[in-house]
């Protein structure tokens, strides 16, 4: 039997969908990161956040390193943006009852992709 993913541990899509929407709301409200989404269509934005969470938590999506690099290559993302998103992500997971240890693991996964996202 394969190990349980965080996606499964925290209740699968029905629970994770709430994390996604909370994260989505926070991103849109943030004046640091929000502007990146000014011209993004709602359904595309939701699509990205859904896949983002599923990828990080071991759900049914995964972006290859190349895809991540391509998707972000045209955006002027700085380290400060990446740091901010990391904080928001950690807080969102905490709000939804994730264990400290699990949050640490997710943030580490996120951190591992920094060089693909920040130019």
């Amino acid at each position: 039997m394969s190990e349980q993913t965080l996606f499964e541990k925290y209740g699968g899509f029905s629970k994770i969908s709430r994390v996604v929407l909370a994260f989505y709301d926070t991103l849109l409200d943030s004046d640091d990161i929000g502007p990146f989404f000014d011209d993004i269509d709602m359904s595309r934005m939701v699509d990205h956040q859904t896949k983002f969470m599923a990828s990080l938590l071991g759900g049914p999506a995964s972006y290859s390193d190349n895809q991540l690099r391509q998707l972000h290559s045209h955006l002027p993302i700085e380290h400060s943006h990446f740091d901010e998103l990391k904080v928001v992500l950690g807080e969102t997971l905490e709000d939804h009852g994730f264990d400290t240890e699990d949050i640490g693991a997710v943030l580490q996964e996120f951190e591992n992709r920094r060089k693909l996202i920040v130019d």
Partner: protein
Amino acid sequence: MSIEAINEQLLRAIGVGVALLDVKSFSFHFHNDTFEEWFGAPEEGAKLNDVLTELDIDALRTGLRENRRYTAETRFKKKRRTMVVAVDFTPTLEGEQEIAVLVCQNITRIRELESMIDSYSMMVERNNREIKREKEQVEKLLLNIMPRAVYEEFKTFGVVTPQLYDPVSVLMLDFVGFTDMVASADPSVTVTELNDIYSAFDRIGEQFGCERIKTIGDAYITVAGLPDPTPDHAKAAANAAIRFIRYLERRNSSHPNQWRCRIGLATGAVVGSVVGIQKYVYDIFGPAVNLASRLQEFSEPMQISVQDDMAVVLREQFELDSLGKRQIRGFDEQEVWRLHDSSRIMSQAGS
């Protein structure tokens, strides 16, 4: 507080956007707080289209005239968030004056959730397709090592009961000088060619209803009459044997590497089963297997040796010569026959 005052306060504070409009000019008479929160306060003398820029005013007029109602969905950006609002217009009379009542529901969350479900279900569907593909790969691999009927049993019960197949015909083929070939030529070329030849044998065998059981190095074993019994299993195996040799002869005429084989054919009972737990092998056991293997040793290169019992069945359709009585290790002394390619004999007779 009077009923009117309560009503007005309710109307202002309710979580639904409400506005009253002049039915001809669509200028605002009234809007509540929620409406203002979403669309901003309409300026003095502002028209509906100044606020809800995406709304189709002509469709609204037609709807009100013909159906006395008009509903639509409008999208706009509030800060950077796409808001989706369902609007509903109904005309009513206020004293002498005809006005349109506009009720707006915020359905942004519903649309966001729908987008998320779309996105998620697409991921899941893609995953399912991948899993299905992988499952097919596994199935294909297992079908390479066991007959389909056995695989079905294995899939359903997790085990395969050894089964007796009686009678079947076993074809055992072995290449002449294979060891020397591997030693003298480039081994990878030899193995690649061997693979081509085995693949051709598989196709030929399939045409005649033979099931390839296994290959051990340069030995190739195929069986007719298994897993489904066939009355003409002996003829099927003989036909396959003749075609194997024809195929090799044709191949040798245009290839530098010459492949020559010996074939033995025997009829009898075999037991077929999956052997092993971690590394499954489907294999057959029984006197027919051993006999075919011994008979193969009696063959000259590119010739087919046939067991006596089987020769009796084949005689009506195939050309056979007796090799006389032979001692066979592990079996009684018995007559051994040589099977000829009768089409060749006919063509030689004709020429």
